[in-house]
């Protein structure tokens, strides 16, 4: 459970970073003239669209991890427990990716940042603007769904993490808790429609970076360290669900 809590916190803190891009969208969705409840509903629909995409990506990444791990079948026994080499490689790759993403949050690895964000995302975002003002109930949902696919280092980081879990369910849960973590800030952006003070945003970004860095190190550790030495699967209660 702790694991998912950390993910949730990372999502929550990271969403302050998201305010730059996705927050703009949330503001763009604006208020519904039919009142506060309608506005809230509009933003909930938008966010569930986003969440669906995240969950889908998580489950897909988890299933992918599962395929990679079971196909290899190079399990051997070490210190009384079975270790899968593919599992470890996956964990190392995911861990390194997460650490790199985390470093971006502290303003490092800018070239990598450009690579991940400048992936044609802005063109897509521009073209999706027509959805923001459309008055249909479905429009915020559709917008949320596409928004979820916009290139974002946070999403990449957690998708990598989801893949390293090696199963569809924990992958899904990882992304779900991350997605839920982004809810409060995004709802607030939509509801309040006011940009937070820059200092707050900076703190949020650092907190998010810290969480991702922590998760990245744990994941990397799972790949590198001998089994049971430091981070057994049970420590963070990941598979408790």
């Amino acid at each position, binding site marked *: 459970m702790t694991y998912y809590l950390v993910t949730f916190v990372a999502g929550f803190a990271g969403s302050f970073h998201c305010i730059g891009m996705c927050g703009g969208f949330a503001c763009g969705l604006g208020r519904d003239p039919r009142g506060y409840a309608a506005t809230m509903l509009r933003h909930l629909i938008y966010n569930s*669209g986003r969440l*669906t*995409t995240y*969950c*889908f990506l998580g*489950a*897909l990444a*988890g*299933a992918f991890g*599962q395929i990679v791990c079971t196909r290899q079948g190079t399990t051997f026994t070490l210190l009384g427990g079975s270790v899968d080499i593919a599992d470890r490689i996956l964990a190392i790759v995911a861990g390194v990716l997460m650490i790199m993403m985390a470093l971006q949050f502290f303003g490092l690895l800018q070239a990598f940042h450009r690579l991940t964000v400048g992936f044609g995302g802005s063109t897509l975002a521009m*073209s*999706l*603007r*027509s*959805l*923001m*003002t*459309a008055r*249909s109930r*479905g*429009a915020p*949902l*559709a*917008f*949320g*769904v*596409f928004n979820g696919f916009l290139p974002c280092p946070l999403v990449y980081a957690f998708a990598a993490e989801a893949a390293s879990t090696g*199963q*569809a*369910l924990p992958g*899904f849960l990882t992304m779900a808790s991350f997605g839920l973590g982004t809810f409060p800030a995004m709802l607030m952006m939509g509801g309040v429609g006011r940009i937070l003070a820059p200092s707050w945003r900076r703190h949020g970004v650092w907190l998010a970076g810290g969480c991702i860095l922590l998760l990245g190190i744990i994941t990397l550790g799972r790949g590198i360290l001998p089994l049971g030495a430091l981070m057994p699967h049970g420590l963070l209660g990941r598979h408790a669900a």
Partner: protein
Amino acid sequence: MTPSGGSLCHHCLLPVGVRSLHQTVNGESCVFCCYGCSIAFQVKNGKTEEWEAAWLLIRLGIGAFLSMNIMLFSLLIYGGVFTGADARMLPIIDILLLILATPAVIILGGPFLRETLVEGTRGHLTSSALIVLGVSAAYIYSAVAVIESNAQVYFDTATMVLMLFTLGRYLEAAGRARAARDLEPLLAAERENVVVLQNGIEVVRPMREIEAGMLVRVRPGERIAVDGVIVEGMSRVDEAVITGESRPIEKDIGSPVIAGSMNMEGLLLIRSNGSGTATRWAQICRSVRDALIRRSPIQRLGDQAVTIAVPGVLVLSALTVTYWAQSLPFDRALLMGVAVLVVACPCAVGLAAPLATSLGIGRLARHGCLVRDVGALEALARVRLLAFDKTGTLTLGKARVVAIDTADVSIAEVLALAAGLERHSEHGLGRAVVNAAAERGIGPILARNVRAVPGRGIVGHIDAGTVAAGNLALMRDLSLPVAPGLAKCARRAEASGHSVIYVGWGQRTHAVISLDDTPIPDGRAMIEALRARGLRLAVLTGDLAPAAHRVSAALGIEDVCAGLTPEDKQAALDRRRWSREPVAMVGDGLNDGPVLVEADVGIAVGTATDLARETASVVLPVGGLRLLPWIIDVARAVRGTVRANLLWAFGYNLVALSLAALGMLQPIIAAAVMAGSSVLVVLNSLRLERLPEPAPSQLPERVSSAATARSLGVPIALGAATERG
């Protein structure tokens, strides 16, 4: 929906063919070649206030939302989450999936179903039919299974196949639009509006309303839409589209500008000197559009393959289901049949050729090289023999004075009198005489009552009596005898291929002016570059042998055939055709028209005259012969890309089809694989964007554009004259 085989897709600018899709976007009636283009166009250009564009995105978004939820549940089911005690949840989840899948299938599958039905009523079976059949099989089977509470459902297959195909078509269309970016200015020219200054007020007017004398405003970064003269402002312009040469040329008040050139720096006001639709630029644009609409032989082959493939795949799919149903449960066998249907969608095959060829044509057109016909580009890539006409092709078609033989008068006197006559002449040889006098600082002696004698020369009067410049017949007509020494000089000059002008006044002929054509600059480098590409080269000319040999030797071509009539040229070309390899003829497009038509590829150089009358399938700009090696490179690259695409598309389809028939491919994976294959074909074609630009010419930098005006205006008349001489 009407068949509109003659138009281009609004989005990717490929010909729409018979399978066109008509839609209203932003209040404008648009035609698209496929579903993907319609999505991509609306995503890119749909205006916020237009309901239709937003509605399309909403539909896709909701479809994606539903199918992702279905996939999510299915992944969890496959991952073994609902086993053991949780297994009792399964029937409820199945019903939930049915509820989610039904709208998803309707939303995402609608366009595919519509295409199938529309084409079906026209008697065509398209690849959409395969998707529709595969998806409905998976959906109907699963729906029945839910009602009967059977074990396994495949809603994820039905919806994800639709999702992936929609995504694939969108990505493919988005990639194609990148190719269209090159062609866009060429095709937009006819629709373009220009800013006209009327009574001091700027008014936007459509191109077709532009007439001579109008003042047109051109901003920096804009394309100049009219031929004309600058009346205000100064700038540098890039005339690559017309001259083939991409370099900034300084322009000032009074400099002529050509339609199609790019204004790079300053704000210009241009006085148009003709109608907006009569410029060479407008003709280039029309010609490119015509070329794109024609289908190449290789393209037709691809289309035929698709026509045959679809029924074949249906049969194969039925066989697969029948075969596997004997040994496996029916649902597994059905899934394999669906995989066969989905994986065999021959979209990539249909896409293999047109994208690459339009990229190639667009690339060439941007440097002023027109390909009138896609087939010509294909043939050009296979050409092994290039035959050149001499005059106006390997030579500039600009005569210059090389010798003046006189009998007891001074050269200065001859030139002064000849120039005085010839300055009234439009004849190219005459202009060479005027230039020669000017170069030597000799002022012309003005003559009165100057008149041209057709086919003979020019005659006028000075104080000493009649003065004439022209051929021998003119001298005889005017009873101006030629001294034996002078006649011998003239015969010698003519024998070596020079053109000759006799100049006589008073009682006899006093001088013989010999003129020769100049070989093109950069010619030798061009010939060597062509030879390095494995081409055999020949010169086939109607000119005299000595002149032909002189030019050929200067350029380094050994195979020379001189003194040929147009029919002889054709025969000579056929003799040189070793096997069934295509041969190309390069000429000026006027006096060698018949040969250009007969050759597999006729290449005309520098005909600024009406392009519509051209007989050649490839037209190069004035002085564009140096681009020939580059053009061959582009043609070969295009052909290589098309072949690689076809090989890839066919090979990929065959391998995937076999795997699917053997039951080794999941339908969802098959759909992803298929969508990926089309995207790969697009990406492979887009590699053509990275072809190198043509090498810049070795000519010194042009500063003013007076030279441009000359080279555009006069190229041909003189060439013909030299041959007669």
